[in-house]
Each structure stands twice: as C-alpha cells, then as structure tokens.
C-alpha cells in the first residue's frame, strides 16, 4: 500500500460538530487513460490506466465504496456526504486497473 500518488481529502465545512453531515471530497492525480488514446509522438496506443475502485473507511467502518470506469476525467474528484460520528480518521483506499493500490488518510476532529 503506497502513498506515492498526490491526493487531497477535503472536508467542508472545515470546522464541524459531532452529528453534522459534511461534504467530503477526494481528489487524486491520475491519468485515467481509457486505453483508446494514442501517444501523439509515437502513434502507439496508450494502455488503459484508470482508477477502478475507491473506498471510504471511517474509523474502521466502510461507509462508501465505488466502482470506477474509464469515463471519469483525468485527475478525478469524488465528492459525497458523510455524517460525523466521533473523532478518528477517514481513510480513502483506491486501486487502479494495473493493480496499483494507494491510500490517503485525514484526521476527523469534531468540535463540540
């Protein structure tokens, strides 16, 4: 499991209370190559390389999981809502079709 890919987890609003429903976004740099594009210089087909699954795990519990297909934009963003239920951490795990696995974690710190 690596942390090599650049990514960001954003929570809106930045300050939240326990029980509040916040917007959570996961953004990652990834080519999302469909496998149908050609390299402009070599004219060869660029092999498919796209994120194919994303999981949101909050304090050990999987709250959302996604099956992702190649039609998503390059450097994709995944935004949904999440109910704050205690201090802890949100871990986003994602894989791509070439078998690459990565994760990103963000601390969850409700105020009050």
């Amino acid at each position, binding site marked *: 499991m690596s942390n090599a890919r*650049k990514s960001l987890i*954003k929570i*809106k609003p930045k300050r939240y209370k326990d029980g509040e429903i916040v917007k959570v*976004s996961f953004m990652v740099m990834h080519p999302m190559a469909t496998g149908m594009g050609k390299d402009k210089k070599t004219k060869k087909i660029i092999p498919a390389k796209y994120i194919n699954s994303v999981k949101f795990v909050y304090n050990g519990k999987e709250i959302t999981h996604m099956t992702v297909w190649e039609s998503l934009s390059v450097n994709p963003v995944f935004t949904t809502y999440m109910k704050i239920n205690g201090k802890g951490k949100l871990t986003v795990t994602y894989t791509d079709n070439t078998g690459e696995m990565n994760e990103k974690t963000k601390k969850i710190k409700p105020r009050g």
Partner: protein
Amino acid sequence: MKTGIKIALSVAMLTSLSFGGEQFAMSAADRAMYAEMSENNPADIMVADGEELLGYMGGDEGLAKYLGVSEDDLPAYIAGFPRYIKKFDMVVGLDQVIQAMMADGGHPPLKLKSGNMFSLLAYVKSIANGEKINIDVNANPQMKEAYALGERTFMTRRGGRGLACNSCHSSDIVGSVLRTQKLPDLGSQGAKSAATWPAYRMTKSSLRTMQRRFQGCMKNALLKVLPIGSKQMVALEVYLTAKSKGSEISIPGLKR
C-alpha cells in the same frame, strides 16, 4: 512570406470570425456549475505540492526573508510581481525569484518550464490570494522599459500568418467567436486574466502558468514560441498583469 500574403491571410482569418456568441454563451446555471468546480480544483493538489516544495527551502518565512519583506507584507508584495529586483538588476517573475533562491541556497535551480516550478509558482502566487494586483509599471525605468517591451511584443505581427496577440485579443475583436470560443478580453483595462493564472486547464488536464499559456497560443498562431523567462515573455507578463491591476488574485484558476 510576402507581407501582402501575410496580411491577406490574417484578414481572411479575421473575417471567418462570427460575431455574437449567443449560441455558445453559457447559461447562468452552467456558469454556476463551472464556478462550483473551482471548489475542488485538481490544481489544489499541485498548489499543496508547491507548498511542500517551498517548505524545503524555508517556506513562506524563507521567501519573505529572501525578498527583504516581513511575512505580514509578503502577500501584498507578491501581488506586485513581476518586479524589478535590485539584487538581480532585472525585472523578474516569481518563478525566477524561486530559481535564484534555490541557487543562492546551494541547490541546482529547477527549470522554469518544469512541473515542480509550475507548482511552486502557483503556491507562491496563492500566498497573495485575496490581494489586489498592485504591479507598478512606473516604479522605475526598468519597469517602464519592460511595460513598453511587453506592449510592443503584444502588438507585433509575426509568424506565418502575420498575427499579433492583438489580432485576436484587442478590445474591438473581443466578444467575437473563433472556433466556438468567445475571444477573451486581454488587452484592455479591467481584464482579470493575471489574477487567475496559474490555472488548471481542463483540456490539458494540467496546471499551466501564464507564460506557458502564451507559448501554447503562440504555437497555435504559428508564431515562434518565446522561451519562458525571456525578456520578452516577462515583459508580456508585465504588460498583461498591468491590464489586470486591481483585480483580486485567486489561485489556482480553472480554465478551459
């Protein structure tokens, strides 16, 4: 290419412009959707990366010290770039300052046209988010010279089609539609372009700086591409930043 043919070609191209871009105008609802996208701009990742990179060189504090300003004054100072910096005896952009800082710190400086430098430039400029562009083109003779050179570069017809930046971006052409896109107003006062570059370009899926964008435009218009950081490119940036004077900086931008 003979001047006559050059002019004829540019006239032919200009007459192919259509006026009145209503059919391609974005509705208010669509515009709101694109504005919402800025909330989660992929370039935010590059800006965060730039922050990390600057951190290795002393961070905001180190940069302020290098520029000879207090950390409190740093955002407003950044909002005045490109500037004439005495210790370099040159009018420079923020990326060139970063290069100098790296060199003076004993590190081989990053190339101006590199992903890491674009990220660094975006982060540094974002320090000035919320500030109004306050470039002073009359601050000294060097800035005056740079502004004049920038204006000249903007107006000079060159290349296979005899086009100048002004051919497509002057105030009397603005609003016309070329290849389904409304030509943006770059050449007149009140333009906001310098306040929103560096930006994430959706069609390129990458972070692009203003000078890098100039290069792309030059290539498409069949003009010889000027190197980033060259006297003319910095001058162009001075000229266009002056046109955006007073606009509020918001980095990273989000562009087509």
